[in-house]
């Protein structure tokens, strides 16, 4: 679907309220294997984007994504800031070079690769990449939004069985097993929120 200014402003508002609603849950997940600030950090980032939503929504989608990425980098704090920031910025850059929707899958692939470089992480490290990679596969298959959302949520749950190899959770070694990764969890929440909106407003 074509994402217009009104869609973008609404998507920002929805993502912000989803993170706000799950703030304590994300921080609890982070407390179990990290420093317990993921919920507050994500909320700070989304609040900052929300505060600028009118100006962002007036931009073309690639420029809007770049702007969102910059705001996230500057406001989330913690390792999640540069990771989510890189995802949005690189997605925007790739889309502006490739010219939009037909190449969304390729743009997403490039953005996810940039996140992996930034975090020096790969599949199975128990990070948000363990949600992003399976989501990318579904996007490449042109799966329906509902299917992409389901995939994101089950991918986040499957980080429970993983042993962390990056971030503070890695210090726990095998004790990190049995807990869902907070970054993977926030990534699934945001993915599902965006997919729900796409399903309700377009349903390809």
């Amino acid at each position, binding site marked *: 679907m074509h994402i217009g200014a009104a869609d973008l402003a609404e998507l920002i508002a929805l993502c912000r309220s989803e993170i706000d609603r799950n703030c304590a849950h994300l921080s609890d997940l982070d407390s179990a294997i990290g420093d317990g*600030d993921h919920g507050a950090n994500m909320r700070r980032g989304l609040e900052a984007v929300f505060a600028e939503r009118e100006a962002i929504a007036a931009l073309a989608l690639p420029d809007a994504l770049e702007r969102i990425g910059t705001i996230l980098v*500057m*406001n989330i704090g*913690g390792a999640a*800031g540069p*990771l989510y920031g890189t995802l949005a910025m690189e997605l925007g850059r790739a889309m502006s070079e490739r010219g939009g929707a037909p190449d969304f899958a390729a743009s997403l692939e490039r953005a996810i690769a940039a996140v992996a470089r930034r*975090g020096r992480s790969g599949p199975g490290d128990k990070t948000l990449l363990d949600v992003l990679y399976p989501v990318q596969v579904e996007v490449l298959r042109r799966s329906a939004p509902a299917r992409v959302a389901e995939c994101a949520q089950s991918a986040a749950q499957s980080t429970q069985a993983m042993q962390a190899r990056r971030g503070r959770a890695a210090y726990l070694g095998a004790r990190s097993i049995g807990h869902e990764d907070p970054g993977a969890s926030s990534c699934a929440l945001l993915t599902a929120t965006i997919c729900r909106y796409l399903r309700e407003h377009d349903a390809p």
Partner: protein
Amino acid sequence: MTARIADSPRAGNVGIVIVSHSPLVARGAADMVRQMVGDCVPLAWTGGNVEGGLGTHVAGIKSAIEAAWSEAGVAVFVDLGGAETNSEAAVEMLGPARAGKVSICNAPLVEGAVIAAAEASGGSPLAKVVATAEELSP
């Protein structure tokens, strides 16, 4: 929270930046550096998230690097993961010309910063300052 500790009368020396999740740790480490080298090395520290709690943030790190700026380069010392990732993002935001003169060191925060500052105070180039600090990491 970010602070510039010393103006350098010898601007040719490599600058030192300390990034910790804790403002108290960052400031304490900077105090130890200053005790070692006085004011002959540009020095700045930053610690805490935007709200003053434990954490790091890109804008604070970027300001600290700018505060300790030296044309000879800047060596950055970080504590835990987020400090490193956010420092990398801050360095990128300086633009390619300046980013090329900043190194994020793989060294312990306190010992690394002190030994790097000692090396920098003798006028060593950035590569030598970084290598000396990184010798501390096995």
